[in-house]
């Protein structure tokens, strides 16, 4: 279980009160209310949730519409959805009921990533115990990162191979089994229930913090909080050097003054070539003893492993990149070094992936590497700094042993 001491609002149980309010408001007014309150999606894109609901509500097709909760948080370093599923499933369920009532869905699905199978079992028990007005089905994935992409997720629920669909059509018009469908993130849905409380604050987000910190975990903070403040609370184990926004969100040189807010992060990222985003508020803190190329190699391996193989650019280039990086930093940290053409190779790969990949997975696959090359060029000089990495590993091991003894 993750520690709950840094979180307050998301733990509040709404106890059916929000649903009662919603029922007296009626569907249209509910959507209006959600839009007015400014609830935004927490999955990464950050669109107004009310707009998404309204679009599907006004689609023809009667009650043959579906509501899907995306709990396939496969982004490395992200664990906030798991936190909600563990600690406040009741409010999440109420959020689902509110959404179904407002949109006019007759059935909801909660898609839980394969690695959370145990959580899904617990959640099912909670579902069985709670009084419900719509059927809610829990579907457990098979462990593919790409199923977090909403159309791949829909394919997976339908029992098909979890690969992204061609868009358009988008799920709002052609979703589950071809019916209009809303896909919302877990945190968004829980907040939809909380939004009907008078003291709800729409700017409180869950941050998943990991990396070289002594207190990794879920932190509830207002958007705009300075990176330095948050990291101080997490107690860095060494001087921070960089922050990675998951694997797909790119990275920035550590700057304590950075405001943790989508526009600010994107603006800072634009200065280093773009592709950096706060996304689902994942922060992996990388300390000074760490080798950036090694981190990038690990991320490249992740993408090569998770590419669904559907479109050639992503399938071939992610594999090539992973191999290139592994040869350069070495599997065990022994450096082969980067040759002079490495930068050019990455630039070409990024361009191809960006224009030709079918989905976000391929398009984001080089975000971290590109940003790292711009901000930490000296680390990508031959030979790579491999020794510091091995050293740091043993250091951490010793630290861990010391922790467990005390």
């Amino acid at each position, binding site marked *: 279980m993750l520690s709950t001491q840094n979180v307050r609002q998301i733990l509040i149980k709404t106890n059916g009160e929000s649903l009662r309010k919603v029922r007296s408001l009626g569907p249209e007014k509910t959507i209006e209310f959600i839009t007015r309150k400014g609830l935004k999606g927490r999955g990464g894109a950050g669109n107004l949730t009310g707009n998404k609901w309204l679009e599907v509500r006004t689609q023809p097709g009667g009650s043959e519409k579906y509501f899907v909760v995306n709990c396939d948080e496969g982004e490395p370093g992200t664990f906030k959805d798991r936190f909600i599923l563990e600690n406040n499933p009741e409010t999440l369920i109420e959020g689902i009921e509110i959404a179904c009532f407002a949109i006019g869905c007759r059935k909801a699905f909660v898609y839980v990533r394969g690695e959370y199978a145990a959580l899904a079992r617990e959640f099912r028990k909670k579902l069985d115990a709670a009084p419900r007005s719509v059927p809610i089905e829990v579907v457990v994935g098979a462990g*593919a990162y*790409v199923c977090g992409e909403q159309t791949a997720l829909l394919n997976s629920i339908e029992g098909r*191979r979890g*690969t992204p669909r*061609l868009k358009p059509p988008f799920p709002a018009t052609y979703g589950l089994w071809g019916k209009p469908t809303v896909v919302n993130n877990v945190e968004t849905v829980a907040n939809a229930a909380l939004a009907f409380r008078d003291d709800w604050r729409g700017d409180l987000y869950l941050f998943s913090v990991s990396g070289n910190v002594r207190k990794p975990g879920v932190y509830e903070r207002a958007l705009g909080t300075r990176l330095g403040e948050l990291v101080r609370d997490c107690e860095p184990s060494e001087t921070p050097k960089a922050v990675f926004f998951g694997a797909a969100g790119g990275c920035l040189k550590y700057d304590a003054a950075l405001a943790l807010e989508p526009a600010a992060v994107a603006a800072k990222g634009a200065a280093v070539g773009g592709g950096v985003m706060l996304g689902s508020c994942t922060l992996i803190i990388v300390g000074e003893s760490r080798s950036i190329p090694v981190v990038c190699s690990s991320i490249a391996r992740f993408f*090569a*492993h*998770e*590419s*669904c*193989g*559907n*479109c*050639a*650019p992503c*399938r*071939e*280039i*992610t*594999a*090539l990149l992973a191999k290139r990086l592994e040869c350069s930093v070495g599997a065990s940290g022994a450096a082969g070094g980067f040759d002079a053409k490495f930068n050019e190779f990455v630039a*070409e790969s990024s361009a*191809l992936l960006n*224009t*030709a990949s*079918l989905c976000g997975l391929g398009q984001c696959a080089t975000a971290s590497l590109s940003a790292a090359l711009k901000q930490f060029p000296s680390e990508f000089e031959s030979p790579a700094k491999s020794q510091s990495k091995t050293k740091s590993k043993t250091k951490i091991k010793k630290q861990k042993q010391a922790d467990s003894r005390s």
Partner: protein
Amino acid sequence: MGKVEFSLNGKKTSAEEGANMLEFIRASGIALPGICYEEGKPPIGKCRMCVVEISGAYRTACTVKIAAGLEVKTDSAELKKMREAYEKLLGKTELEPEIKKFVCVPSQACGILSLDRKKCILCGACVRACDEQNINSLAMVERGKAARVETEFDKPIDLSRCVLCGKCSLKCPVGAINERDDTKRALDALEKAKSQGKTIVAETAPSIRVAVGEEFGFAPGTRVTGKMVAALRRLGFDYVFDTDFGADLTIMEEASELKTHLGKRLVVTSCCPGWIIVAEKFYPEALPLLSTCKSPQAMTGAMIKSYWAKKKGIDAKKIVVVSILPCVAKKFEADRPELANDGLRNVDIALTTREFAAMITQKKIDFASLPDEDFDDVLGVSSGGGAIFGVTGGVTEAALRMAFPEHAVEFKEVRGLEGIKVAEIKDECGSVKARVAIANGVGNARKLVDAVLDGKEKFDFIEIMACEGGCAGGGGQPKPTTKSVIEARTRGLYGEDEGKKVRRAQDNPGIKAVYRDFLGEPLSEQSRKYLHTRFHSRGKKK
């Protein structure tokens, strides 16, 4: 929807809103590359080769629908660079070594379809084709670099759901999936025929004459019967017969079965080998409803090695029958041990249209400038009823012409490319004499058979063809075989029927002779020996 205006390479143009952009661009005379798109089908969008610039963004043309105000650019240095890069990616950076045979246990079906992984670009056209057939034996498995096309649970093909329709090989844009290559065996046999004292006989299925020309620059559907016969003679065949003759025989037998069972029980056609495998794998309970007739290919072969051999005074053991067919499953059929008489296979080598064309090319025969030649006598004479065996609804129409000779010769109600057709044959007073149904494509066939087995529908006669459009769209036909190509071939075959003096099988003088001199009556003991067969369950698949 209506017409909308947009610009293509700077020029104002208009087209139907929502129409496919790639099709429109190609129709405007611009040769846009693109490997995985097939006209009229939902796009796959994987090969990325048809990338164009649309209002400032790079998009694949196949996935874009035409809308007002779009600015489309099909050519620029940047686009050219992108296409080159994509092509390189599809060409693969690392080659995997093995050619994977879908089949690994020694068996009858061994190697009838194989996949060359070195060529496969993972576009998924075969998977879509298999899905359209509602067989779903082929699927993508694994992910990333390990992604590959595979039969379900890596099963060998004869234990899998595959029915050998060959649609995957027909739709593969890079020739990675192929039917078993029997051209070497055929050319070998032709070469050694003289020294071994053998007589080599060819028979050509109805739909070959309207398709093989496409491989040599003729428009789809052009009838090149004469050149086809001439080409076979140039290849060294001693005699060239028409499988249409066998089709006429099939009609004599099948329509007699229909007449016997009319009002009592359903008769389902048995001439499509793909459908036979569907029935044996998926509907063993329906096997007793099948006509026991052999297919035209086997009937022709059986007659060549018995009736004709005797007549000519040739030792049947010294005859090699090579059939040219639009079909991959026919290879499997030709190998069936049941299709033999007097210890001899009915057909020795079965070739697809594509293989036939490859042989012509290999032997450097200039097909287009060949003279028109006629089929050889007796087994080369056929009726219009035999000719239309090559299209969906054709077998039904031919059978009805025989069963109801009092009716006008054409039964227009059974024609057309719809997936499932239902027609009622009425007498002058309007009472129904027979209720027939026709399905083409395995997906439609399964819907129809399910409805019949569930008792929801009742028919006297059902015709099933495993391929879209019947043999005209067969799995062994030239590429591309799209809907418009199938329509053209269909028109070609109906044109042949209309031009024939003899339209009904029973009026064919050759057929009359073979019954008078050899077989006796339809369904006689002699007919049953040479023209009928049996089927067996291959373990029910779900």
